[in-house]
């Protein structure tokens, strides 16, 4: 078993109570190559027998997860979801993993979809899962989208710029927070900055608010007059939008950006560490 599977098994068994032997037996059978029907039944029975309570990892377990797969977060995992991912990871089957994943995804209920996609960073042959990740991002179920986008290192590590950019844009479009997305700063790119600025213009034209987080992916590429003008406009709106714009201007690569911040209270807050992207996230929560 991979270190991730071993950790999941230990965590599930420690929380399985009277179902400990059942989990242990079924997982062993799947490791020995039980038929796919057994996997389907285990996936169906997992919430029935184990319940759906939060996994609530200990500090040691969090550290072990980070060691097993850098960026892997157990935040938001439930015990049945962990058992489902474990079953998938250990099942010794004949067909390629992506084929089996597709089969499960096509017939999954909402909680199963969330579990399947939370497990993305742990599966073998990640490059065979691009289509499946795309299907999940296109889902109309926001929690399924967030199972991929939030606290999941798979997009950062495996998405190309096009898919990455559209994930960020969809997150804003459906009102999903950006700060839980791993790699938000390191994967920022000029094309994304352009798309987001145009999106901000659409929102302004419609009289709808613009998320302050949008400017986080714009700042590092705000080097021309048009981009700076957009940030100035956001700055003049005041409130959270202005705080986001100020942080973006602070990160912009041209001196003119700092000029726009002169005399603004936000600039002082940034310099003093009182204003940061994580502060904005906390305010929104």
């Amino acid at each position: 078993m991979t270190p991730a599977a071993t950790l999941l098994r230990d965590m599930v068994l420690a929380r399985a109570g009277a179902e400990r032997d059942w989990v242990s037996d079924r997982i062993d059978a799947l490791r020995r190559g039980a038929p796919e029907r057994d996997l389907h039944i285990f996936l169906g029975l997992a919430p029935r027998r184990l319940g759906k309570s939060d996994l609530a990892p200990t500090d040691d377990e969090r550290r072990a997860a980070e060691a097993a797969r850098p960026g892997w977060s157990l935040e938001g995992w439930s015990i049945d979801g962990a058992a489902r991912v474990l079953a998938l990871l250990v099942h010794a089957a004949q067909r390629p993993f992506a084929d089996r994943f597709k089969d499960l995804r096509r017939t999954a209920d909402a909680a199963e979809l969330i579990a399947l996609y939370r497990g993305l960073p742990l599966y073998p042959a990640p490059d065979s899962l691009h289509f499946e990740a795309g299907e999940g991002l296109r889902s109309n179920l926001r929690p399924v989208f967030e199972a991929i986008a939030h606290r999941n290192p798979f997009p950062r590590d495996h998405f190309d710029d096009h898919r990455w950019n559209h994930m960020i844009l969809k997150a804003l479009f459906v009102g999903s927070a950006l700060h839980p997305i791993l790699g938000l700063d390191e994967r920022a790119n000029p094309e994304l900055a352009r798309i987001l600025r145009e999106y901000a213009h659409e929102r302004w034209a419609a009289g709808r608010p613009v998320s302050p987080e949008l400017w986080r992916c714009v700042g590092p590429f705000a080097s021309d007059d048009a981009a700076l003008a957009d940030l100035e406009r956001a700055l003049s709106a005041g409130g959270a939008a202005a705080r986001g714009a100020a942080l973006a201007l602070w990160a912009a690569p041209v001196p003119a950006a700092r000029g726009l911040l002169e005399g603004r209270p936000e600039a002082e807050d940034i310099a003093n560490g009182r204003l940061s992207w994580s502060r904005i996230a906390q305010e929104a929560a």
Partner: protein
Amino acid sequence: MFIDPHAHMISRTTDDYEAMAEAGIVALIEPAFWTGQPRTFVGTYVDYLSSIVGWERFRAGQFGIRHYCTVGLNSKEANNEELAEGVMDWLPRFALKEGVVAIGEIGYDEQTELEDRYFRAQLDLARELGLPVMVHTPHRDKKRGTSRSMDVIEEHGLDPSMVVIDHNNEETVAETLQRGYWAGFSIYPSTKMGNRRMVELLRQYGGERIIVDSACDWGISDALGVPKTARLALESGIPEETVRAVCYGNALAAYGQSGQMREDDWLNPAPVDQRTLFEGNSVLRGGRDPVVGATVRARRDGLIIE
């Protein structure tokens, strides 16, 4: 609080969800059914089942209504043998999904040989999995079709207490209750049950093992069939205890036998569900006046769309 244990929400709009939540519906059951036009590929049927276990459940949750479903091959489409065989291969995969409370709606339409074959096969599946069954009784030759359904159910060794015989009327109810089944009534204008007739039946039979539903779907039907019937019954002097049983408690008792439907699901949902799949019901939150359709009316009469 009401439960509508037969509502085809895939055919309904968000206005209906809002009105249902405002009228006090906290949970509903969406039986797999004939969507108004036959499916001609197994894949479209499979995707339909995926929709009712996934997307529709999520959609309902956004309005604070707990969504459950039943899965099955309906009697009309059982007459397409190629489709039926394919669907039967996939059904076991769906029967253990979260929120699946029964095999259904299954039974007879024209009482053909193929309908009979797949009705029996699905009764066996329900017995194997320990799931309740929701039986659709035919519109035509109804009385005989209803009796025959119960004969076949007993022949296959199912306990009547695990079976809801739905779409009853004055002609079928006595036998359904006498044989020990749950008796469903669909408050559906023109073709099934009217709620004034329903109130008379409650006066005659009381509330034991009687279940009221709307069967609302793509036809002219009323998503508020259950709360409207409850109100009419109370105004007509039917005891509150009886109304609560037929518009809430009995459906919970019958379909709760699946282990997939508990009062806690809406009164005290799991943290993971509150984070992801269930917004909480406005009636339970006490946030808004439970005025039937107020939001919907406001939208219909208001000119501004933002």
